[in-house]
C-alpha cells in the first residue's frame, strides 16, 4: 500500500518535471533550428545571387570591351584601308593582342559581301545579306548575336558593328572565341554540382552545361521566371532534387546567365548543424531524464526513510506509552494483591501466635500445622517479591536518586539474563570489585543501561561465547565494562553506534534505539560510555559513572 503510494509519487514527480523541462526545450530547439535554417538559406541565396551578379558583370564587361574595340577599329579606319590586303590581319593581331578572345575578323560591305577576312575559315566572298543578324546590325549599329551555327556549322556568336562612311555603310564583324567565353562563364561554377551557363530569351543554351548539356539545346528552365536584374529562386529539377538558381540578365535582357547549385550540397552544413542540434537536444533530454529519475528516487527514498524513522519513533513512543500504562496497571494490581497478602500474613501470624498456646502444643498435628503455616508464610513472601518486582517496574518510568550499589544491580541484571544467555550457550562471567562505594543514582535506569549492554553483547555473539562483566573503581569514577568475544564492530560503524536508529542487527531485530537510550541515560547521569572493538576479537563497552556520595539521612 505504502509502496504503491511512493511509486505513484515518484511517477508524478518524474512526469511533471519532464513535461516542464521538455516542452520549452523542444519548442526552443525547433524554433532555433528553423530560424537558423532560414538565415542559412538566405545566406546561400544571397551568395549565389552575388556570384551571378559579379560574374554577369564580368561577362558584360567582356562583351563591352570587345564591342568597344571593334567600334574603335571601325571608327579609326576607312573601308578602303581595311579592304586593302594585309591591313585587316594587322588590326586583328592588335585586337587579339590587346583584349583577346577573337576567332576571326571580317569586313562586310553594304551588300552583305564578305570583302576581307582574317581567321581559320575560308569565308571570303560569302554573302551575309540573307543572315538575320545582318539586318540587325544595319539598323542598330552594334549587334551581339545569339549563338548560331552559321556557315561553318559550328555554334558560335559574333559581334558586329556598323560604320557609316560618307554615304557608304560597311560592317566589321568578329567571332568570339567560344572557349574563352565559356571559360568565363564556367568560372562561376561552384562545388561538385554547381553549374553556370547562359540561355537566350527563348530558352536555348548559349554555352555548354557542365554535365552533358549541348549548346543550342532547349533548356528545362523557363527564362521568364527570372525577374529583372538578378534574382534567385529554388526549383525542383527533373531528378527531384532541390536546386537553387540565380539568374542575371545580360546583353540588354537577351541573355540570361544562370548559376545553379544543388541545394542539398550547400545544405549539408545545415544538416550537420541539425544533426549536432539533435544530438545536443537528445543528450540533454537523456540527461534530464536521468537526473530527474535519480533525484526523484533520492528524494522519495529520503522521504521513505524519514517516514520509516517517524514510524519507528511512533512505534517507540507507543511502546513507551504501553509500558507506562502497563506500569500503572502493575502498580494498581500489586497494591490490590498486597492488601490480601497482608491479611493472609496477619492471619498466619495470628495462627502461629495461637500455636504457642499450650492446648495446641499437645495436638497430634502440631508439627504439621506449624510446617503448613511456615509454607504459607514462605509463599506469601514469594508473592510479595513478585508484587514488589512489578512495582519496581512501574517506578522505572521516572528517574530519581537513591542509594545504589552498582554490584548489586549488576548481579540482579545478570541473574535476569542468565537463562537467556544459557539457551544460546553463552557464559556470563563476573569480575566485580568488592567494596565499591554506594552512589546516589537511579537504580532503574542503571539497570536498563546494563540490561541493554549485556543484551547487546549476547546478541552480538549470537551463539557460543563469553560475556565478561567487570566493575572497578578508577579515581572518582566507577567503571563498568561489558566485554564480548563476538565479531567486533567494523571501524566505520564504531562512531555511529550511539546514533539513534543505527543498528547492525539484521532487519527487524533491532530498532537502533537501545544504545542511544543507554548513551542518553549515562550522559544525563554525568557519565561517559565508550567502546573498543577489534575485528574477530570482540567489543568492550565501558560505562564510567561519577561517584556521587549519597546525602546522609
Amino acid at each position: 500500500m505504502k509502496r504503491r503510494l511512493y511509486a505513484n509519487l515518484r511517477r508524478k514527480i518524474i512526469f511533471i518535471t519532464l513535461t516542464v523541462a521538455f516542452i520549452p526545450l523542444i519548442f526552443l530547439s525547433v524554433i532555433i533550428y528553423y530560424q537558423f535554417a532560414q538565415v542559412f538559406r538566405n545566406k546561400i541565396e544571397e551568395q549565389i545571387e552575388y556570384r551571378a551578379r559579379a560574374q554577369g558583370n564580368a561577362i558584360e564587361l567582356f562583351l563591352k570591351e570587345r564591342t568597344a574595340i571593334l567600334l574603335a577599329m571601325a571608327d579609326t579606319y576607312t573601308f578602303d584601308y581595311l579592304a586593302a590586303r594585309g591591313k585587316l590581319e594587322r588590326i586583328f593581331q592588335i585586337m587579339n593582342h590587346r583584349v583577346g578572345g577573337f576567332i576571326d575578323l571580317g569586313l562586310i560591305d553594304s551588300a552583305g559581301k564578305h570583302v576581307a577576312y582574317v581567321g581559320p575559315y575560308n569565308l571570303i566572298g560569302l554573302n551575309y545579306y540573307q543572315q538575320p543578324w545582318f539586318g540587325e546590325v544595319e539598323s542598330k549599329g552594334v549587334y551581339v548575336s545569339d549563338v548560331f551555327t552559321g556557315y561553318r556549322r559550328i555554334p558560335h556568336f559574333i559581334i558586329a558593328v556598323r560604320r557609316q562612311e560618307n554615304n557608304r555603310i560597311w560592317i566589321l564583324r568578329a567571332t568570339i572565341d567560344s572557349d574563352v567565353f565559356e571559360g568565363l562563364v564556367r568560372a562561376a561554377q561552384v562545388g561538385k554540382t554547381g553549374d553556370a551557363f547562359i540561355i537566350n530569351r527563348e530558352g536555348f543554351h548559349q554555352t555548354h552545361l557542365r554535365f552533358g548539356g549541348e549548346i543550342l539545346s532547349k533548356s528545362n528552365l523557363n527564362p521568364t521566371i527570372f525577374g529583372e536584374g538578378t534574382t534567385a529562386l529554388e526549383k525542383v529539377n527533373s531528378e527531384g532534387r532541390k536546386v537553387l538558381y540565380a539568374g542575371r540578365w545580360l546583353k540588354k535582357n537577351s541573355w540570361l546567365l544562370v548559376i545553379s547549385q544543388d541545394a542539398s550540397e550547400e545544405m549539408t552544413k545545415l544538416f550537420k548543424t541539425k544533426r549536432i542540434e539533435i544530438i545536443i537536444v537528445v543528450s540533454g533530454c537523456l540527461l534530464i531524464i536521468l537526473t530527474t529519475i535519480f533525484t526523484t528516487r533520492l528524494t522519495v527514498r529520503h522521504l521513505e526513510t524519514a517516514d520509516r524513522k517517524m514510524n519507528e519513533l511512533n512505534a517507540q513512543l507507543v511502546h513507551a506509552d504501553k509500558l507506562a500504562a502497563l506500569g500503572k496497571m502493575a502498580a494498581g494490581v500489586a497494591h490490590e494483591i498486597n492488601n490480601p497478602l497482608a491479611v493472609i500474613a496477619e492471619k498466619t501470624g495470628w495462627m502461629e501466635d495461637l500455636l504457642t498456646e499450650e492446648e495446641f502444643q499437645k495436638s497430634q498435628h502440631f508439627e504439621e500445622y506449624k510446617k503448613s503455616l511456615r509454607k504459607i508464610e514462605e509463599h506469601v513472601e514469594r508473592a510479595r517479591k513478585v508484587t514488589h518486582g512489578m512495582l519496581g517496574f512501574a517506578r522505572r518510568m521516572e528517574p530519581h536518586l537513591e542509594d545504589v550499589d552498582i554490584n548489586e544491580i549488576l548481579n540482579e541484571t545478570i541473574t535476569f539474563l542468565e537463562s537467556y544467555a544459557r539457551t544460546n550457550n553463552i557464559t556470563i562471567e563476573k569480575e566485580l570489585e568488592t567494596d565499591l562505594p554506594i552512589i546516589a543514582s537511579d537504580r532503574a535506569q542503571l539497570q536498563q543501561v546494563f540490561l541493554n549492554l549485556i543484551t547487546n553483547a549476547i546478541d552480538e555473539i549470537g551463539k557460543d561465547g563469553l560475556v565478561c562483566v567487570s566493575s572497578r573503581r578508577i579515581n572518582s569514577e566507577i567503571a563498568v565494562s561489558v566485554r564480548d568475544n563476538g565479531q567486533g564492530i567494523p571501524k566505520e560503524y564504531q562512531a555511529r553506534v550511539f546514533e539513534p536508529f543505527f543498528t547492525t542487527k539484521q532487519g527487524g531485530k533491532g530498532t537502533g534505539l537501545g544504545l542511544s537510550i543507554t548513551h542518553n541515560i549515562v550522559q544525563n547521569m554525568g557519565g561517559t560510555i565508550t567502546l573498543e572493538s577489534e575485528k574477530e576479537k570482540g567489543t568492550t563497552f565501558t560505562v564510567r559513572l561519577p561517584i556521587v556520595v549519597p546525602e546522609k539521612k
Partner: protein
Amino acid sequence: MDEFSVLLVDDEREFLETLMKRLKKRNLKVTGVGSGEDALKVLKETPPDVVVLDVRMDGMDGIQTLREIKKVRPLVEVIMLTGHANMEVAVEGMEVGAFDYLMKPMDIDELLYKLEDAYKRKTIQEQKIKHLEEEKKLEGV
C-alpha cells in the same frame, strides 16, 4: 518493656482485627479504627502513644489523617503502613512528621521494633518538654 497504647488505623477489617489480636497477645494496649475520621475522634478522647496509619484508605487518606493528627496531638508518633505502590506517599508522610514507614505485608517483629522505637522517642520528647516546663517554672519563681 513499658506498656504503651497503640491505635491501628486501617480500612481492611480482617487485617485490622487480626493485627489487633496479635499485638494484644504481645501485651500492647491496642485500639483499632477503620477510618481516618474515627482515628481523629479516638485521638481527641483517649490519645494513644503510637498510631499505625494505613496510607490508602477511603475517605480521609493517610497523609490527610497524619496532618490532622500532628495538629491535634503533635507528640503522638505515627508509623505509616503502605502497599509498595504508595511508597512515595509514605516518604512524603515522613516529611510531614511520621516516625517511619512499613511495607505491607510486614513482619510482626519489625512492626514491634518500630513501635518500641516510636514510643521511646515519644517519651524522650515528653521528658524534654517536661524539663523545659520545669525550667520555665523555676525561672518564673
